[in-house]
């Protein structure tokens, strides 16, 4: 179970970012790319400054910068969101292979596990939630904060409005473009942080394409959680658990088909998407429905 939180945190960051972005009506398949550039930038800057916090900030900024590229093409140039997202992903992949080579063999002063005094001694729960790196603790605040901002504040209302019925926003004199830009860039910022967690707090290494599809998983999780932060948290931990489960079971001598186990989370997503697809489609912001060309009753 500790593994679920450990392995799910990087996905969770991306999922929070994507929640914000999708609420504003922009799907960013480039999340995977933001995560990759975040992972590399964090690792590289940590290697050079020996301070993982500066590294994490650099990672987040790199993720945000890549998301800005996505925002420019889909918002200013009205390019297809899904296709642009993939292009942005490959841009991230290419950039990181190019600049990452020098850091493959580097060791950095990474984030250390910090046990929360008192709380970490609570049996079971303490072990699962309170023996992690600082970036993981940050998500415990990030999730409720994301929910609160999106659902209970004026800014959140603007973001939701931009995704739902952008005409209304412009009618009231708000700059829709600016709100959507902000949402997408924040999405990339968080995805970059997720990448930073992966490279400087979890795996303690940089490798080409080290995210291995976790950014995509995050996008799927968000769709499956209908952009609800708490549900997305659950989904992220589900993937984290799947990641942790297979080695844990193997080492205890449980004989389960390894390949089946590895594909389990993806199967779960497909099933849930099929079951909930129809219902959720109707709840999605109108801006998003346009992206997926869902039928809108008019």
């Amino acid at each position, binding site marked *: 179970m500790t*593994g679920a939180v*450990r*392995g799910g945190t*990087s996905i969770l960051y991306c999922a929070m970012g994507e929640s914000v972005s999708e609420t504003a009506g922009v799907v960013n398949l480039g999340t995977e790319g933001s995560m990759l550039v975040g992972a590399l930038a964090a690792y590289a800057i940590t290697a050079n400054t020996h301070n993982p916090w500066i590294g994490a900030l650099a990672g987040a900024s790199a993720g945000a910068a890549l998301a800005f590229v996505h925002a420019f093409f889909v918002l200013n140039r009205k390019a297809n969101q899904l296709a642009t997202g993939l292009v942005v992903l490959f841009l991230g992949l290419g950039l990181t*292979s190019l600049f990452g*080579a020098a850091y*493959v*063999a580097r*060791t950095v002063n990474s984030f250390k596990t910090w046990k929360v005094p008192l709380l970490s001694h609570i049996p079971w729960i303490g072990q699962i939630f309170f023996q992690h790196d600082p970036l993981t603790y940050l998500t415990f605040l990030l999730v409720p904060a994301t929910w609160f901002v999106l659902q209970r504040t004026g800014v959140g209302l603007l973001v939701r409005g931009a995704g739902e019925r952008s005409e209304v926003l412009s009618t009231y004199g708000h700059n829709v473009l600016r709100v959507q830009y902000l949402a997408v860039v924040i999405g990339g910022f968080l995805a970059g942080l997720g990448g930073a967690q*992966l*490279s400087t707090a*979890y*795996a*303690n*290494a940089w*490798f*080409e394409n*080290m995210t*291995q599809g*976790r950014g995509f998983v995050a996008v799927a999780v968000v769709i499956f959680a209908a952009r609800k932060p708490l549900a997305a948290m659950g989904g992220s931990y589900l993937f984290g658990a799947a*990641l*942790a489960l*297979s*080695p*844990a079971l*193997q*080492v*205890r*001598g449980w*004989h389960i*088909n*390894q*390949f089946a186990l*590895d594909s389990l989370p993806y199967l779960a997503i497909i099933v849930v998407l099929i079951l909930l697809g129809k219902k959720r489609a109707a709840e999605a912001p109108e801006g998003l429905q346009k992206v997926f060309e869902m039928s809108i009753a008019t």
Partner: protein
Amino acid sequence: MRRISRWAAISAVLLLALVAAACGSNSDKSSANASSSGSSSSSSAPGKDSKAVGFIFVGPKDDFGYNQAAYQGAMAVKAAFPNLKVLTAENVPENDDATRVMEGMIAKGAKIIFATSYNHLDPAMKVAAAHPDVAVVQQGNFIKGTVPANAGTYFGTVYEPVYLAGIVAGKQTKTNKLGYVYAYPIPQTVANIDAFELGAQSVNPKAETYTINTSNWCDPAKQEEAAKSLLAQGVDVLTQHQDCTATITKAAEAAGAMVVGYHADASTLAPKGWIAGSEWDWSALYKDIVQTALDGKFTGSKYNANFRSGLKDGLNPFVQSKYGPSVTQDTKDLVAKAKTDISTSGSPFKGPVMSQDGKTLIADGTVPDYATIESTIVVFVKGVVGEMPKSS
């Protein structure tokens, strides 16, 4: 504004098309040249008088592991044959894309091709069948049945240095639990795991090797999780068969455990925990293969087969890494003795070797040859904990 950008887009597309057409006609020309020269010299031996050598790698050339070692081998060829063009391609998938990359290299004049990843074999065989004048060699796999006159596989007996490292691990462990993180249960990996366990057993009958597979050659997060699970079970020596090796090495060091390296010397990543390891040195073998082919002697040579090189002939491209600081002279002497033994009359798989479920794999006293080892050591031996994933 909109009109301008549309014109800009259209002209950009046109420009791209022009460039593509130019490139296309270029490559057409060169491939036509190559095929014409190919047909004129079709009677000549595969690889003879080649102007270039092609290498394809499944991963990046700087993965601190398998692909980096192969790339360094290619660079050694470049240094040794200044008149040869050395063509390299990284991240070549193990499918028909590989065929295309190799065809492209042949179009550029390469008549000697090294396909360096295990599952590059099928594409490599296709290319070999289409170009009788090109020598195609593949690293690590095994051609079943008749070997075509212009193809072959080559590899080191990787399990020999792994066995020696197992001796070190067996002597060093305090908990008698060793951990092995691997990607897929391919024969090479299984032989390594078995050799590691047998090496450890030879000096410590209580030593067991716990295995975890990650179903991925390089997923650092999965590796971290695998390492944590093994350490939580009381394993105090970690080793691995992964393409990228830094994560597990660092995880062992951070937990105060010991680590046995694979592919490359990573002792700088674990100054305290590093005890031993095995690493590649392909330069001598690559150079010899290239020379043989250039001389027109490829067909019928030892490389026109499933060539395996080991301690016995002194050409093993897989060698021992340096020892870590905690390894005693006693242990080093044990390893030296085992090494002499294997080089002369022994084998890591000298019988009796029993499988996990108690079947006899190699009979008592038998010293198996390389071919026997590749066909029998495909299951885990007694002392290995864990089951291989099945694809059905």
